[in-house]
């Protein structure tokens, strides 16, 4: 809502309160003022002048040479390019030395050999948007009415010496969608009285009900319909004061009749509609739901097909307006209109919202109906509009009342207690202060002991419960004046859950290991959603996605991280290492929420270690990522439950991929991205893993328990084995561990040789075995016994022989 500071003063005395100060007060106590615009900001030296002579420029087809009386004793020659300039016009002249918006300074100039001492201005040149300027002045210069005094400041004549407060209205404050509503609000904030218009239009002896008869079928949508008939109107431009008020509020002036309806909409917040009575084709208004498939051509020349969810105004048979949204083209007021049928109606929000949504038509009227208008203003607004039509369009208002009224207006009566107010706000107010606040709001109250009962005016439909009253007290008492306290009562121990604590450990670990945390989108494309999913369940789809790329909830994080790598590599980051923790979404039945499982994923490409001047460049490989997983799992105390097994997975390198197991259950995968996929993403060798963080963080861990530091020495035996090339070190290690018995405490691979010295199809793997007995120093025999078992098992179970 755009509020003119000058216009507001019609209703309330603002002396001593500047627009800026007012804006701050309104923001602090009521409604956020998003900005204050000075309409003449950056402009000066613009005067109303009189065009005495106007002829074609001798040397330029499109220019005019004019002689303009500036009204200050000066008459100057001005070259003007506007096609509509003419002798006798009163115009806005930017004189030499004037400044126009954009710091455009007017200087004396010579145009095609003719001197020009200034510029005749269009409204746009004076800072008024083209779409707000009256149509006849949307192009070319503006003409003042002939009675405009010359020599005066043109910006004052156009009421641009004004400031506009832009109110950011929350949905509850529909009351402030009118100047009167804002006046009430400002009155309450400043503690001042307001004066309201008191329309008392004269009526003629003719009776309106001889002209029109109103019937409402859809009483629920339209409980009150007031019609007035104004005869003998002369349609023409509105006076400047009216046009400029509309333009300052963001509405384009059309003609006096339409402008008056818009003016009342702004003043009362009550939408009105003017029909050309003679075009109605009947003496009847019938308000009903539209028939399915019924068509109306609206004022914007669009044909709209209606349904029974929309409300229409008809002439008994044909629709003449889409109720509360837009009038019909068939009954539009034009320059030849002489009799106006004025509608002031109370429509409820539902049907209006539906129509405005279905037809993509949000008008000043519909937005007010959607939020709710004041039922008590329907009649006064009609009276005020009629009064203005008499004054400004020479009309004649017919007598009598024509309405269809099934509206029951019941102001809300809400009570609260002083105790409750103080308890909720944390204040120490007295009843006197509370009463005073409601008096400022012009709400009626009655007090009984500590209970205050408030009759809420219908203009404030947002107030229905005692908390609403408390809010009024709080905001007008001033939140600045509230004490500052902290909650009392039982203290609660603040903490993270075990899961949350461990999640932080995981993040710290991943970052310590050299990866950056990424946060990516949960919504993805159908193609990506299916990639790298650990659990190939049906994906969860949006009913109405905004785009195909964001239509499905992810089943895995790796595709998102690969995008991140691609983005980075494309921007000359030669290496990138990222991880993410976040939910993947697994569909349950249609009626249930999907399962949201937290995953941990990582993706690394490019160099892992690099120290250029030492000549070291080590690209990432499988074992870098595997080491991270192993380290992380060890950090969580689960290393004894961890396992890896070779796996084949779509999108992954078939020889370099493994499943990650926890306690024998697959919880994730790790490996190199398939070269085809790497190529598609413009990536070099890239390694990823993804695992169920939930499984990892919810796994049972043994409580941390101290074990004694060994007092006896351990003995290490190294063995080099010749095995088949395909033999897995993990399997061999398993054989060793199982055969080694309790004395064998540690088994480590320390060498892998696949070079030419080996027989075809063979490789050598060397293990280091550490034997140790916590009870005594091991003898050679003890070790030999265990070690022989190991070698035997290796040979028998894995065909591994000692390398000669």
């Amino acid at each position, binding site marked *: 809502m755009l509020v003119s500071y000058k216009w507001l003063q019609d209703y309330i005395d603002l002396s001593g309160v500047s627009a800026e100060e007012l804006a701050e007060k309104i*923001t602090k106590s009521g409604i956020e003022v998003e900005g204050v615009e000075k309409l003449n900001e950056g402009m000066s030296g613009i005067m109303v002048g009189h065009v005495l002579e106007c002829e074609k420029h001798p040397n330029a087809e499109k220019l005019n040479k004019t002689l303009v009386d500036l009204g200050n004793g000066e008459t100057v020659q001005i070259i003007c390019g506007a096609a509509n300039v003419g002798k006798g016009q009163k115009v806005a002249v930017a004189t030499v030395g004037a400044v126009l918006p954009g710091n455009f300074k007017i200087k004396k100039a010579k145009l095609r050999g003719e001197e020009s001492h200034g510029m005749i201005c269009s409204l746009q040149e004076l800072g008024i948007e083209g779409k707000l300027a009256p149509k006849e002045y949307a192009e070319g210069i503006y003409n003042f009415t002939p009675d405009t005094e010359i020599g005066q400041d043109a910006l004052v004549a156009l009421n641009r010496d004004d400031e506009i407060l832009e109110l950011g209205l*929350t*949905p*509850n404050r529909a009351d402030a969608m009118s100047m009167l509503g804002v006046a009430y609000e400002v009155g309450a904030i400043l503690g001042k009285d307001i004066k309201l218009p008191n329309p008392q239009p004269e009526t003629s002896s003719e009776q309106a009900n001889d002209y029109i008869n109103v019937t409402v079928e859809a009483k629920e949508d339209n409980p009150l319909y007031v019609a007035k008939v104004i005869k003998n109107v002369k349609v023409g431009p509105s006076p400047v004061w009216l046009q400029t008020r509309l333009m300052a509020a963001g509405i384009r002036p059309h003609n006096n009749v339409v402008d008056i309806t818009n003016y009342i909409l702004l003043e009362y917040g009550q939408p009105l509609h003017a029909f050309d009575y003679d075009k109605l084709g009947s003496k009847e208004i019938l308000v009903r739901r539209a028939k399915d498939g019924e068509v109306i051509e609206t004022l914007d020349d669009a044909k709209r097909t209606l349904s029974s969810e929309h409300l229409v105004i008809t002439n008994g048979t044909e629709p003449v307006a889409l109720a509360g949204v837009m009038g019909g083209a068939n009954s539009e007021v034009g320059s030849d209109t002489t009799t106006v049928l004025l509608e002031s109606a109370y429509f409820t929000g*539902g049907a209006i919202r539906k129509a405005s949504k279905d037809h993509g038509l949000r008008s000043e009227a519909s937005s007010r109906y*959607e939020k709710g208008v004041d039922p008590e203003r329907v009649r006064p607004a009609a009276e005020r509009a009629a009064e203005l039509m008499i004054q400004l369009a020479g009309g004649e208002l017919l007598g009598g009342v024509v309405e269809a009224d099934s509206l029951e207006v019941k102001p809300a009566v809400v009570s609260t207690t002083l105790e409750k107010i103080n*308890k*909720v*706000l*944390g*204040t120490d107010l007295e009843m006197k202060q509370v009463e005073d606040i409601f008096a400022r709001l012009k709400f009626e109250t009655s007090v009984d002991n500590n209970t205050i009962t408030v009759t809420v005016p219908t203009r404030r439909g947002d107030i229905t419960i005692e*908390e*609403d009253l*408390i*809010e009024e007290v*709080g*905001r007008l008492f001033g*939140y*600045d004046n*509230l004490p*500052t*306290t*902290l*909650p009392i*009562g*039982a*203290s*609660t*121990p*603040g*903490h*993270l*859950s075990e899961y949350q604590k461990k999640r932080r450990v995981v*993040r710290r670990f*991943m970052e310590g290991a*050299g990866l*950056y*945390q*990424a*946060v*990516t*989108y*949960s*919504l993805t494309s159908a193609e990506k959603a299916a990639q790298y999913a650990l659990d190939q369940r049906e994906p*969860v789809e*949006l*009913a109405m*996605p*905004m785009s195909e790329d964001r239509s499905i*909830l992810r089943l895995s994080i790796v595709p998102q991280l690969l995008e*991140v790598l691609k*983005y980075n590599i494309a921007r000359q980051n030669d290496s990138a290492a*990222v991880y993410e923790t976040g*939910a993947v979404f697994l569909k349950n039945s*249609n*009626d249930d*929420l*999907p399962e949201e499982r937290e995953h941990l994923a990582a993706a690394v490409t490019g160099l892992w270690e690099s120290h250029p*001047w*030492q000549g070291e460049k080590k690209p990432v490989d499988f074992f870098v990522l595997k080491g991270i997983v192993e380290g992380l799992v060890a950090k969580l105390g689960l290393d004894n439950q961890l396992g890896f097994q070779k796996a084949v997975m779509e999108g992954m390198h078939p020889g370099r991929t493994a499943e990650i197991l926890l306690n024998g259950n697959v919880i994730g995968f790790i490996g190199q991205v398939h070269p085809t996929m790497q190529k598609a993403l413009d990536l070099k060798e890239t390694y990823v893993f993804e695992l169920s963080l939930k499984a990892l963080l919810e796994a049972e861990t043994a409580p941390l328990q101290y074990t004694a530091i060994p007092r006896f020495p351990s003995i290490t035996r190294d063995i080099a084995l010749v095995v088949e090339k395909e033999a897995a070190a993990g399997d061999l290690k398993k054989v060793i561990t199982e055969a080694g018995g309790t004395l064998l405490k540690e088994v480590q691979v320390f060498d892998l040789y696949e070079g030419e010295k080996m027989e075809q199809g063979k490789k050598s793997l060397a293990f280091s075995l550490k034997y140790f007995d916590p009870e005594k120093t091991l003898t050679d025999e003890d070790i030999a016994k265990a070690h022989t078992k190991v070698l035997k098992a290796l040979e028998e179970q894995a065909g591994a022989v000692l390398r000669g």
Partner: protein
Amino acid sequence: MQDRLKELQAEALEKVAAAADLKELNDIRVSYLGKKGPITEVLKGMGKLSAEERPMMGALANEVRDAISGQIEVKQQELEEAAVQKQLAAEQIDVTLPGRPVKTGSHHPLTSIIEEIEDLFIGMGYTVEEGPEVEKDYYNFEALNLPKGHPARDMQDSFYITEEILMRTHTSPVQARTMEKHQGKGPVRIICPGKVYRRDNDDATHSHQFMQIEGLVVDENVRMSDLKGTLQVFAKKMFGEDREIRLRPSFFPFTEPSVEMDISCKICGGSGCSVCKGTGWIEILGAGMVHPNVLEMAGYDSKKYTGFAFGMGPERIAMLKYGVDDIRHFYTNDVRFLKQFSVEE
């Protein structure tokens, strides 16, 4: 014989003094003092000497030996010292060359903000609650005083999956769920961070996915002044002790009264600048007293219990705190962007 020994001593000492390295010195030791050395040779001729002469000559021979070996020892120390010096000189490095970088990653800036807020409120007795990102319409809207057809639902156009299930538009459903779990009993003090989704086109200031963090306190006797005090503690810890806060009226369907909190602009100190759009204040969060309908729907007696809630956007806070100018940076994960947040503050 005596002369011969003297001669040998002089000759040996000369050679020792001239020895260039430890090997040469050792050769000298072996050749003069060894079993086959000239001194031993000379002493072989002792048999020809008289009984009186023998001990004298023996003593002289020992003197000569001691003199030579003493000098060798001195020379050896000298040479060893020189060798150490030489090695140290050879081992010299350029200490100004860059060190080997320790591989480190870092938190996403949004995580930094969220964890900072979590920790701040944990210190004030809050626990951290989380909830599903795909929510029931009931928890996302209805339980929060937004019945079907409520005009305020327009404020947050959402991604529906079915008629009853949608991507949550705020983290408030976690509040509804937590209150429900408490079965109408207090106290509740929670902070709820998480991802939320709205039907917005991604641009510099909008993102269809973003983070939210909300707080909720429900108990007997929770007052609006407690909300103000809590937010003041939060603002000063988060943005600096010198920041002022301002509450102004606003509207949310789930709170009544509702407020928005501004903090004084750090850039201009309140006099007005482009960051604060000339107002001297920067909007940080929305808050209010929990609406009685929300309490009742979660099973609380709104006559007995009151509560406050507040909610904010970590993206907005990060943008203000670090001067990030485009919300999309948080989701494109450019490593050059992420790296900037590895500094611990």
